[in-house]
């Protein structure tokens, strides 16, 4: 069998991906593609990246056997890849460190980013502070309200946070606004996209920077168990933590790869953020072709999820491709199911997971029950839940 080798040189994953942007951005994307190609295998660049991942981020992150939780769920053994233990508390930093080092090599003094939950914004503000780069983060006005602690965190780190008032005032609108900034300030500015979306080369580059997660897992699982898991489970917003852990496993056909989307109030209610599970039509948004939540007139519709980081109407083009070729499976869990898993992990393992991650945990519970005790599920614990305690408290009618 041919080793997996996607995307093609134009950034296509089959019919997905590509470069769908206004003409002004083409040259900047060409430049980025060339520079990324130059540095991705460059020993000096990689040495600098690995130094930062080790000493600044704290990699490798451990894998933890959630034994008590597995016993309580009943069925397969659940292992957690602890991306929550990274500096800044999520997988997002793997990508921002990589892109920021690239920005430095390209001589761009100004960084912009979009953020939903604020995790990518915090990770970007963090590395910008560390490298002495100016940082501007676009965040939907709704999300600014939902994720107040992260907004303040970004400000402490010296970033300017710009609330975006257009459209649905969430992640997709923050992305639109970041693109508008980029097109205006193209010569000075590097746009650090926070997920495996956007025009080529972003989906590929963000995947590559996050794939350190899956690469470590392969070694660590081998050391711990002498084998690889039966299934790998990760939540999917844009899909960067999922691609990061899936990618090194794609050629290991016997390992099931399962992406968990946000079913919000339930797929059947239409109030969700699960384009793959809901069989949304194919469309073009934010520079790539993918499955996209939209109405018959091609207008992007509002999404719903308890977690700001999954509240996105599209999905990275590589996930669309992996779904079509049936290499990965996609499912969705509701707000309520995710909340239950959130509490369950807190109480049985002493780990407060992010609400995004709780979607993956909720599905891992369901799946484990259908499997045998000698089988293994590996969940990407993409982030910690400190940022979500206000949201969870509010749902429990507790005023902090």
């Amino acid at each position, binding site marked *: 069998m041919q080793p997996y080798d996607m995307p093609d040189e*134009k950034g296509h994953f089959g019919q997905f991906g*590509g*470069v*769908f*942007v*206004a*003409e*002004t951005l*083409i*040259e*900047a994307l060409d430049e980025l593609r060339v520079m990324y190609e130059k540095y991705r295998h460059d020993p000096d660049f990689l040495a600098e990246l690995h130094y930062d991942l080790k000493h600044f981020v704290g990699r490798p992150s451990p894998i933890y056997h959630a034994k008590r939780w597995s016993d309580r769920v009943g069925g397969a053994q659940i292992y957690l890849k602890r991306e929550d233990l990274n500096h800044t508390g999520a997988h997002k930093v793997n990508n921002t460190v990589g892109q920021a080092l690239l920005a430095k090599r390209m001589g761009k003094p100004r960084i912009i980013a979009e953020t939903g939950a604020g995790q990518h914004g915090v990770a970007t503000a963090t590395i910008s502070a560390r490298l002495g780069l100016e940082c501007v983060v676009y965040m939907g006005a709704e999300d600014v309200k939902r994720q107040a602690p992260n907004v303040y965190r970004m400000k402490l780190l010296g970033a300017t946070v710009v609330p975006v008032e*257009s*459209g649905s005032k969430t992640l*997709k*609108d923050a992305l*639109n606004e970041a*693109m*508008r900034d980029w*097109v*205006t*300030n*193209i*010569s000075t500015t590097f746009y650090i996209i926070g997920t495996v979306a956007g025009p080529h080369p972003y989906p590929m580059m963000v995947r590559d920077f996050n794939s350190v997660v899956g690469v470590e897992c392969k070694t660590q699982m081998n050391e711990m168990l002498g084998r690889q898991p039966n299934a790998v489970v990760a939540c999917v917003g844009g899909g960067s933590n999922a691609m990061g852990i899936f990618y090194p496993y794609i050629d290991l056909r016997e390992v099931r790869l399962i992406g968990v989307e946000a079913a919000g109030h339930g797929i059947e209610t239409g109030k969700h953020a699960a384009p793959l599970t809901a069989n949304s*039509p*194919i*469309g*073009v*948004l*934010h*520079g790539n*072709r993918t499955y*996209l939540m*939209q109405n*018959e*007139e*091609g*207008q*992007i519709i509002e999404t719903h999820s308890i977690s700001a980081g999954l509240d996105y109407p599209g999905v990275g083009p590589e996930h669309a491709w992996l779904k079509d070729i049936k290499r990965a499976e996609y499912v969705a869990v509701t707000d309520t199911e995710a909340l239950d898993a959130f509490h369950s992990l807190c109480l049985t393992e002493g780990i407060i997971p992010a609400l995004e991650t709780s979607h993956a945990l909720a599905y891992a519970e369901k799946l484990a029950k259908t499997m045998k005790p000698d089988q293994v599920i590996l969940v990407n614990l993409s982030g910690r839940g400190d940022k979500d305690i206000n949201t969870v408290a509010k749902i429990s009618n507790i005023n902090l």
Partner: protein
Amino acid sequence: MSRIANTFKALKEKNKKALIPYITAGDPHPDLTVSMLHALVDAGADMIELGIPFSDPMADGPTIQRASERALAHHVGLSHVFKMVKAFREKDDKTPIILMGYANPIEAIGAETFVERAKNSDVDGVITVDYPPEECMHFTKLLKEKNIDSIFLLSPTTELDRVKLIIEQASGFLYYVSLKGVTGAANIDIEQVKSKVSIIRELTKLPIGVGFGVRDAATAKEVAKISDAVVVGSRMVQEIENSNKDNLISNISKLMQELREAVN
């Protein structure tokens, strides 16, 4: 010959430059769009760019974003846009109509259906902001088969090799985006535009239009001197935004006349 080519030819014979206002279909209300189109023609528009409302207008500044939002509040989409053009054609068989929008609404109904309906309602040209030529070969071919012009954007950052590639795909005219930025930004540099336009002109016989930063009659006048067509978007939309239903038609007509006088 297409309506667009005819219009440029007729203008050239009279030694005049084309003036192209932009409005978003359905802004401020779908019932007004057709009469606004006629009013703009009466006041001196040579062609009209009609925006297809989109929920995520990534290349547009706040003014045109708000126009899209006003139109979407009335659920205006492609099906209405085609009807508007058809209604316009009942009284005007001469003025080219160019649809401008984003890829997703086109893909939602499918390229084939889009082109067929565009032809049926007598659309003359299409600009799809987020379709670089490499990504829309099939769409361009379909348009060509139906004699609808594919108008592509060129920007200050477009390198010479790409200019050539775009010229090969383009018809009707070339649209030079006069600044690095979104629609409505106000930092147009005439000298810079002039030098880029003259480079493009050496490579093609197609007329060259300039837009994105034309904020007033004085700028329109300067741009007309160095191009074949001047596109006025955000300034026109701003006039719509600042009008009420009683003075809307007279306000946009007045602005159009001012621009016409400046350009002549």
